[in-house]
C-alpha cells in the first residue's frame, strides 16, 4: 500500500464528495477507475461508507435542541454547586487547621516560656527577687507572643490552604 498515488485520485474524491459518482461522473473517469486498482479501491470504500451512512441516518433519533440545551444547563449548574461546596469544605478545613495550629502554638510557647523563666529565676538569684516583685510578667509576655503568633500563623495557614486550589 505504499505505491504511487494515482494522479486522478483528487478528481475521483471530488466526484464522490459532490455525489456525482458513479452515474453523473465523466465516462472517462469511470473507465479509469475500472482499470486503476487504487481508484477502484477508493471508490469501493467511499461508496460503502456513504451507503452505510445513509442507512444509519434513517434511524437517527436525537434529543431536540431544547432538551440538549436544558441538559447542558443542568449539568453546569450541578458542577457549579459541587465546585462551590468543595471550596467551602476546603475553607472549613483551613480554619480548623489554623485554630488547632494556634492552640498548639500557644500551649507550646507557654510551656517554653515557663521553663525558660524557671531556669532564669533558678540560675540568677537576683532575678528571683524580680519575679517576686512582678509575678504577672511571664503570663503577659506569653500572651503577647501567643497573640502575635496567632496573628501571623492564621492568615499564613489560610493562605496556604487556599493557594493549593
Amino acid at each position, binding site marked *: 500500500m505504499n505505491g504511487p498515488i494515482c494522479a486522478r485520485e483528487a478528481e475521483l474524491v471530488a466526484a*464522490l464528495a459532490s455525489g456525482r459518482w458513479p452515474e453523473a461522473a465523466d465516462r472517462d473517469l469511470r473507465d479509469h477507475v475500472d482499470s486503476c486498482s487504487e481508484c477502484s479501491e477508493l471508490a469501493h470504500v467511499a461508496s460503502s461508507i456513504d451507503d452505510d451512512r445513509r442507512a444509519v441516518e434513517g434511524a437517527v433519533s436525537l434529543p431536540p*435542541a431544547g432538551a440538549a*440545551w436544558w441538559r*447542558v444547563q443542568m449539568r*453546569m449548574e450541578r458542577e457549579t454547586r459541587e465546585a462551590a461546596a468543595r471550596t467551602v469544605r476546603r475553607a472549613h478545613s483551613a480554619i480548623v487547621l489554623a485554630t488547632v495550629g494556634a492552640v498548639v502554638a500557644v500551649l507550646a510557647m507557654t510551656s517554653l516560656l515557663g521553663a525558660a523563666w524557671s531556669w532564669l529565676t533558678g540560675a540568677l538569684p537576683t532575678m528571683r527577687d524580680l519575679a517576686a516583685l512582678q509575678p504577672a510578667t511571664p503570663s503577659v509576655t506569653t500572651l503577647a507572643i501567643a497573640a502575635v503568633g496567632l496573628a501571623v500563623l492564621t492568615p499564613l495557614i489560610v493562605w496556604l490552604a487556599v493557594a493549593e486550589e
Partner: protein
Amino acid sequence: MTTTIVSREIALLRDAKGETAEVSSSLMDEEAFRSFYERTSRGLWLFLVRVTGDRQLADDLLQDTYYRFYRAGATHESESHRRNSLFRIATNLARDAHRRHGGIVSTTIDEATGSTVDHGMDERTDLARAFERLKPRQREMLWLAYANGSSHEEIAAMTGVAPGSVKGLLRRARAKLAELLGNGRSVAEGGER
C-alpha cells in the same frame, strides 16, 4: 434567569482558578447553541455510532461532547473551526471510552436470559462489522473523509493527527477496510482487533 446566574457563578469560579473572565463571557447563548446543535448533532451522532459501534454509548458521548464544548466557552474564528473543535472533543471522548471498554462494545450478555443483547446496531451491516476490526483512529479518519467529506486539514484538526500524516494513514486505513470488505468471511468470524 437561571442561565445568567449559572454563567456568573462559572465566571466567578474561573476567576478563582486564575482563568480569564473573557473565556466565560464567550459561552454560547441559547439560540446560538440550539442552532449549532441542529447543524451538527446528526453528523456527530453518526460519527460516534460508527467509531464506538454502540448507539447507547454514542447517545451518552453526544451529550457529553456538547456539554464540554459549551463549558470550554472557546471562541472560534469560523463555523469550520467550531465544528472541528466539536469533533475533536468527540474523538477524545470516544477514545477514552474505547480505552475503558477495551474495544468496541456492541453486544453484552443479558443477565436474565443469558442471551447476547445487541446494544443498538439494529442492522449489522458488512461495514459495521468491518469497522469493528479497524483501529479507532482508522475508523475516525475513514468516516470523516468519506461520510463527512472532511478535508485532510479538517481531519487533522478533528483527530489530532499531524496534517502531513493524514494522507498516508488514510490510505492505509482505506486499504485495510477494502481488504475487510472484500473478505466477508474473515470479517464476520474474526480478524484484527
